[in-house]
C-alpha cells in the first residue's frame, strides 16, 4: 500500500530498475514512469488498450512469449526487459512489415519531423528494405476541406477510430477492408462530416490524418509555440498556438496539460484564424465630417480624453457608461473597471456576463454566498449522477461535455437530461442519447421542468430529513406552493408524464456524488434567475447542495465570464466580487487604489441603453462588445447610440456598434497579448502572446492606461504582469494559477439565512409556472449556439466557415413535412416584429414545434425577437420567440 494515497501498489523490475506503481498499471505506463520509452503505435493513455500493432513487445520473465506491454498489467515481482535482443528483433520485424507498404513520403508529409514511425524506423531498422514488391496505393474517393486522410501512410493502429468513439462518442470513422488493405474512412461515400474536433489529426501517430487548413505550410521544426488558453468558450482549454514568422499556423494540445487534457473542439482546433482575419482594424479611426478616418494614436487618444473630460465636467460622471466583453483578459477587465470607477468616477459599467451568466452568479451569491462553482471538472468526471438542465453541452461547452461523456461511458455514471433535444444519433454526438432519463422539453419550458422536479421530490418523499428539522417552514412553504400546481398545468404542452419526473428524481437521489449542470437554455430564457434559484431548492431539498462532490455547475458562454465577475466588471461588484455597497469592501479596495470607488449604484447594460435613449447618458465606452449586433432591433440600441455624444469602441473588427462610433481604437486579440483568464470552473489560467500585435493594435489595458494618463489620473503599468500582480494581491482567490482549481464550499451562514427566511422574497413569483402563451399554428424559435461557432467572433475564422458558413433553420422532419419543405428549401419566419427568409434543414434531433437557428448568423432574424429584462438581475432575454413559419 502506498503511504500517501492508501492505494494498493505493486513493485516490479524494468530493465534492472525497481519501481513501485499503483496496482493495475499497464507495463508500458510503469516503464514510462521508470524513464523507459517503449515504442508503440496503438496504445494511448486516453484509450482502452487494443494491442493491435505489436510494436510494444517486451520480454517478461516466466512468461512464455513476448508480451504486448500496452495490454499487460503489472504484477508483484515482475521482471521486464525492454531492450533484449529478442525484443529488438521483434521490433525490427514489426517495423519492416509496416514499412513494406509505407510510402517514402516523409519529405512531403506534414508529420515528417514529429512522426513516430520515422523515429522508430530511425532507431530500430536497417536503412535498406528487403522488400521489392510494389506498395499499396489507395484510390481517393473524396478530398475534404478540413481533415484530410492519406491512407497510404496509415499503420492501422485504429487510434483515430477509437478516439472518435470512446472519447468523442461521435463514431464518424470506421476501418473498412481487411489486413493491410484496411482503410480508415467515414461511413458512406462522402467526405467526413463530424464534430471536427481534430482529435484524430492529433492522435494519429503518423501522417495519415492531417489538417488541410495548414497543409504543407510548415515543417514542425520551424514552429514557435505559445501555450495559451482558447478564447472561444468558458471551458478554457489549454491550446498551443504554433506560429511561423508571426503567422498562426496550427493549434495543438498537450496530454496532461490544462483542464482539457489534450481534448479540443472544432472552435479551438480550427478557429484560430479569426485573430488574423484581413478585416482586422489596424489603425485608430476618428469620425470627421461623418466618416471614420485613419488617424494616429496620439490624435485618437487626445480626442477621446478631451471629449470625455468635457462630458464629465459638463454632465458629471453619471453621464458616462461602459460595456466590456468577457472575452477580454482579467487584466483588461480589471483595468477597465478601475478606469471607469477611479478615472471617470462612475459605477455604470457592465460586461457580457449580463447576457445570461449573471443569473447563475446572482443565484449562487444569494443561496450559497459565493460566486463560483463548488465543484470542478474532476468532480464531474467522478460524479455518479449527473443532471443536465437546459444545456446542449456538446455544442455550447464541448469539453464539459467530454467530462460528462467520460463519467457516463467510462465510469458508469447515471445521466438525467432536461433538454430540448430528441435522443437520436447524428453526425455530431448527442448527449441525450447517453441519458438514463431524458425529459424532452421545449426550449421555453426548462423552468417548468425544474418545477416538475421539485414536485416530484415532494411526491416521492425524498426531502432531506436534516433540512426538514432545520427549516420546517421553508420545506412547508415550498410544499404548499408546489402542491397548488397541478401536473396537468405543468405538462400541458409536453409529452412527459409525472412518473418520468418521479423516476428521474429517484435516480438523482440515489447518487452520492450528484452534480447539476445548467446551461444557456435556463440562463438565457425568461425567468432564468428564478429557475436557477429553484434548482438550488431541488438540491437543498435532496440534501445535496452542501455535500462534497455535489453542486451546481452553471456553464459560461464566453471564455472569461467568470473573470469578469471576479474582476468586478459589473456595476454592483468590486474586484473579488465584493458588493460596491459593502463599506468594508470599499475600504479594502481603497487601500490598494488610494481612493474610494464611487458610491452611487451603477447601471446594468439595459439600464444604460434606456438612459442613453432618453439622452441622460452622454458618453459610452464599448470594449469588444457589440450590443447593436447582439440585441434585437426592438431593444432600441440604435436609437440609444444615436443619442450619445461620445461613443468610443475598442474593437478587433468594425462591428455594427463600431460603425457608429466617434472613435474606434484597434485592440489586440487573445493571440497577441499576455494575461490571465478564469474558466467557468473558476480556474485561473495564463494567456500568452503568440504573435506580435497586428498593425498598430494594442492590448485593451494599455489603451485604458494611456487614457488615464491623458485624463490626469495615471494608472501606469509596464507589462500585463504588473497588473496580474496587483490583481493577485487584491483577490486572494485568483492566486491559483496551477494544474487544478480549488473550489470553495458554500457559506453555511448564507445558506442558513436563505432557508430561514431569505427564500421568501420571491417565492410566489418563482414557484408559478409562466402563463401559457402558445397559440395554435405557431412554433417556438430558439436562437442557439452552434458547436462550430462562438458569438460573432468565430464567423471570421476561415476554418470554421468551411464547416458552417450560414444560418439554417433546423426543423423536426415531421414539421418540415407538414410545411411541405425539405432540406435546402426556404421558409419565411414571421411574427409581429418582422419577418425573414432562411434556408431550412430537417434535423431529427429538433423536437416538434421548435425551430432552432444558430445565433451567430441571426442578423436578419433578430427582428422577430423581443426583449424582456429580468427584474432582479437585469438580464435581457431575447433568444426565444413565437413565430409562424411558412414555405416560400
Amino acid at each position, binding site marked *: 500500500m502506498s503511504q500517501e494515497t492508501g492505494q494498493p501498489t505493486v513493485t516490479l523490475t524494468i530493465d534492472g530498475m525497481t519501481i513501485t506503481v499503483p496496482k493495475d498499471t499497464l507495463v508500458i505506463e510503469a516503464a514510462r514512469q521508470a524513464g523507459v520509452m517503449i515504442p508503440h503505435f496503438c496504445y494511448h493513455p486516453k484509450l482502452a488498450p487494443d494491442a493491435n500493432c505489436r510494436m510494444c513487445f517486451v520480454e517478461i520473465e516466466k512468461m512464455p512469449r513476448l508480451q504486448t506491454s500496452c495490454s499487460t498489467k503489472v504484477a508483484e515481482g515482475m521482471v521486464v526487459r525492454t531492450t533484449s535482443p529478442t525484443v529488438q528483433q521483434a521490433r525490427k520485424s514489426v517495423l519492416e512489415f509496416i514499412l513494406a507498404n509505407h*510510402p*517514402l*513520403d*516523409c*519529405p*512531403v508529409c506534414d508529420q*515528417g519531423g514529429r512522426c513516430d514511425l520515422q523515429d522508430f524506423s530511425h532507431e530500430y531498422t536497417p536503412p535498406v528494405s528487403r522488400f521489392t514488391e510494389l*506498395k499499396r*496505393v489507395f*484510390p*481517393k*474517393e473524396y*478530398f475534404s476541406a478540413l481533415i*484530410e486522410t*492519406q491512407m*497510404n501512410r496509415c499503420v492501422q493502429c485504429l487510434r483515430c477510430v477509437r478516439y472518435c468513439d470512446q472519447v468523442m462518442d461521435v463514431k464518424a470513422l470506421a476501418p473498412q477492408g481487411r489486413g493491410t488493405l484496411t482503410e480508415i474512412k467515414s461511413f458512406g*461515400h462522402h467526405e467526413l462530416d463530424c464534430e471536427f474536433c481534430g482529435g484524430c489529426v492529433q492522435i494519429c501517430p503518423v501522417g495519415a490524418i492531417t489538417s*488541410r487548413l495548414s*497543409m*504543407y*505550410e510548415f*515543417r514542425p*521544426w*520551424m514552429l514557435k509555440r505559445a501555450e495559451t488558453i482558447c478564447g472561444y468558450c468558458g471551458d478554457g482549454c489549454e491550446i498551443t498556438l504554433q506560429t511561423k514568422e508571426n503567422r498562426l499556423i496550427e493549434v495543438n494540445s498537450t496530454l496532461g496539460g490544462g483542464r482539457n487534457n489534450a481534448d479540443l473542439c472544432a472552435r479551438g482546433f480550427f478557429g484560430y484564424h479569426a485573430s488574423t482575419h484581413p478585416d482586422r482594424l489596424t489603425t485608430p479611426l476618428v469620425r470627421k465630417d461623418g466618416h471614420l478616418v485613419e488617424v494616429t494614436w496620439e490624435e485618437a487618444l487626445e480626442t477621446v480624453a478631451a471629449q470625455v473630460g468635457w462630458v464629465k465636467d459638463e454632465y458629471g460622471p453619471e453621464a458616462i457608461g461602459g460595456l466590456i466583453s468577457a472575452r477580454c483578459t482579467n487584466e483588461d477587465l480589471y483595468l477597465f473597471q478601475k478606469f471607469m470607477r477611479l478615472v471617470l468616477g462612475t459605477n455604470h459599467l457592465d460586461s457580457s456576463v449580463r447576457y445570461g451568466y449573471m443569473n447563475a452568479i446572482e443565484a449562487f451569491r444569494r443561496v450559497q454566498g459565493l460566486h463560483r462553482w463548488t465543484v470542478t471538472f474532476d468532480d464531474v468526471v467522478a460524479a455518479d449522477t449527473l443532471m443536465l438542465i437546459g444545456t446542449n453541452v456538446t455544442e455550447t461547452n464541448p469539453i464539459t461535455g467530454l467530462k460528462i461523456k467520460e463519467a457516463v461511458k467510462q465510469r458508469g455514471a447515471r445521466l438525467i437530461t432536461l433538454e430540448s433535444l430528441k435522443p437520436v444519433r447524428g453526425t455530431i454526438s448527442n448527449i441525450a442519447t447517453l441519458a438514463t432519463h431524458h425529459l424532452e422539453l421545449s426550449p421555453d419550458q426548462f423552468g417548468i421542468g425544474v418545477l416538475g422536479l421539485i414536485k416530484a421530490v415532494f411526491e416521492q418523499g425524498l426531502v432531506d430529513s436534516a433540512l426538514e428539522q432545520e427549516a420546517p417552514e421553508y420545506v412547508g412553504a415550498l410544499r404548499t406552493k408546489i402542491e397548488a400546481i397541478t401536473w396537468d398545468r405543468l405538462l400541458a404542452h409536453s409529452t412527459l408524464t409525472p412518473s418520468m419526473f418521479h423516476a428521474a428524481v429517484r435516480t438523482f437521489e440515489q447518487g452520492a456524488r450528484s452534480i447539476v449542470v445548467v446551461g444557456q437554455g435556463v440562463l438565457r430564457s425568461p425567468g432564468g434567475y428564478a429557475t436557477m434559484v429553484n434548482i438550488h431548492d431541488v438540491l437543498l431539498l435532496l440534501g445535496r447542495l452542501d455535500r462534497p462532490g455535489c453542486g451546481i455547475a452553471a456553464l459560461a458562454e464566453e471564455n472569461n465570464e467568470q473573470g469578469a465577475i471576479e474582476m468586478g466588471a459589473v456595476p454592483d461588484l468590486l474586484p473579488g466580487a465584493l458588493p460596491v455597497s459593502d463599506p468594508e469592501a470599499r475600504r479594502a479596495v481603497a487601500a490598494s487604489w488610494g481612493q474610494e470607488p464611487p458610491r452611487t449604484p451603477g447601471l446594468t447594460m439595459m439600464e444604460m441603453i434606456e438612459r442613453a435613449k432618453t439622452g441622460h447618458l452622454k458618453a459610452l465606452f464599448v470594449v469588444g462588445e457589440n450590443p447593436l449586433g447582439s440585441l434585437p432591433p426592438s431593444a432600441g440600441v440604435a436609437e440609444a447610440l444615436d443619442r450619445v455624444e461620445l461613443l468610443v469602441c475598442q474593437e478587433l473588427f468594425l462591428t455594427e456598434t463600431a460603425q457608429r462610433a466617434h472613435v474606434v481604437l484597434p485592440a489586440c486579440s487573445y493571440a497577441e497579448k499576455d494575461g490571465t483568464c478564469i474558466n467557468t470552473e473558476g480556474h485561473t489560467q495564463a494567456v500568452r502572446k503568440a504573435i506580435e500585435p497586428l498593425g498598430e493594435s494594442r492590448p485593451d489595458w494599455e489603451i485604458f492606461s494611456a487614457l488615464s494618463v491623458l485624463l490626469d489620473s495615471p494608472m501606469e503599468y509596464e507589462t500585463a504582469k504588473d497588473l496580474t500582480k496587483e490583481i493577485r494581491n487584491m483577490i486572494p482567490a485568483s492566486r491559483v494559477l496551477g494544474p487544478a482549481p480549488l473550489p470553495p464550499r458554500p457559506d453555511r451562514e448564507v445558506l442558513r439565512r436563505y432557508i430561514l427566511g431569505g427564500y421568501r422574497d420571491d417565492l410566489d413569483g418563482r414557484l408559478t409556472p409562466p402563463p401559457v402563451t402558445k397559440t395554435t399554428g405557431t412554433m417556438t424559435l430558439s436562437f442557439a449556439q452552434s458547436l462550430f461557432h462562438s458569438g460573432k467572433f468565430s464567423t471570421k475564422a476561415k476554418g470554421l466557415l468551411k464547416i458552417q458558413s450560414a444560418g439554417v433553420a433546423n426543423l423536426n422532419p415531421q414539421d418540415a413535412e407538414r410545411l411541405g419543405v425539405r432540406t435546402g428549401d426556404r421558409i419565411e419566419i414571421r411574427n409581429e416584429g418582422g419577418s425573414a427568409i432562411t434556408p431550412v434543414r430537417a434535423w431529427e434531433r429538433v423536437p416538434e414545434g421548435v425551430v432552432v437557428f444558430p445565433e451567430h448568423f441571426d442578423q436578419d432574424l433578430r427582428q422577430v425577437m423581443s426583449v424582456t429584462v429580468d427584474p432582479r438581475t437585469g438580464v435581457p432575454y431575447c433568444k426565444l420567440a413565437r413565430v409562424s413559419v411558412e414555405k416560400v
Partner: protein
Amino acid sequence: MPTTSSPAKKLFDTVLFREIWEAMKVTFRHMFHRPMTFEYPREKRTIPDTHRGALALLRYDDGQERCVGCDLCEAACPSHCIKVISEEDKTRPLQRYAKEFYIDITKCVFCGYCVEACPVNALAMTKLYEYSTPDKRTLLFDKARLYEIGERYLEDGKRYLYAHNQEKEGEESRAYRYQFPVPVQKTPNA
C-alpha cells in the same frame, strides 16, 4: 655571393655582366614552357564535373518541376540562405510544391549540402560562376531564376549529380529519381 671570391674574379664577372646572364637564364628557360595563366575572359578553363558553382533547380524530362517544396534544403543549409515557401498545389490536390523559392547566393558558401539533402535531386550545382553585378539585389535568386539556370545549364547539373554519385546515368537512373505517389481519384461510379 661568396665573400671569399678574389678581386680578379670579381672584375671578370663585372666585365661580362654575369649577373644579368644568370637572371636571363630563367627567362629564356620559361620561353619554352607551356603558359601557366590564360587570358580570361577570352580563354576559359575546363571545369571538373564536381565543381560547386551556382545552384539551379531542375525539371524532369517531361518539364515538370522536380522540387516538391519539402524545405529540407532550407533545413540543411548551414548559412541559412535558402527560403522555401510551400503549399498545396491548387490544381493537383494533396501535391506539395514550392510556391516561392529563394537562394541568397551572396550568403551561400557552396558546401553543396542542400543538393545532398534534396530527396528528388531537384537542386544541382552548375559550372556557372559568372554573375557579378553592380546590383546586389539580383543575387537573391528566386524560383524563376533558379529554374532558368537549371534549363541553361541542365547538362552541368546532371553531371554534378552523377559525379557526386547522387544520380545514375542511363536506365539505372530511375531508382535515383524518386517521384512521390500521386493520389489517384476514384471516379464516383467505379
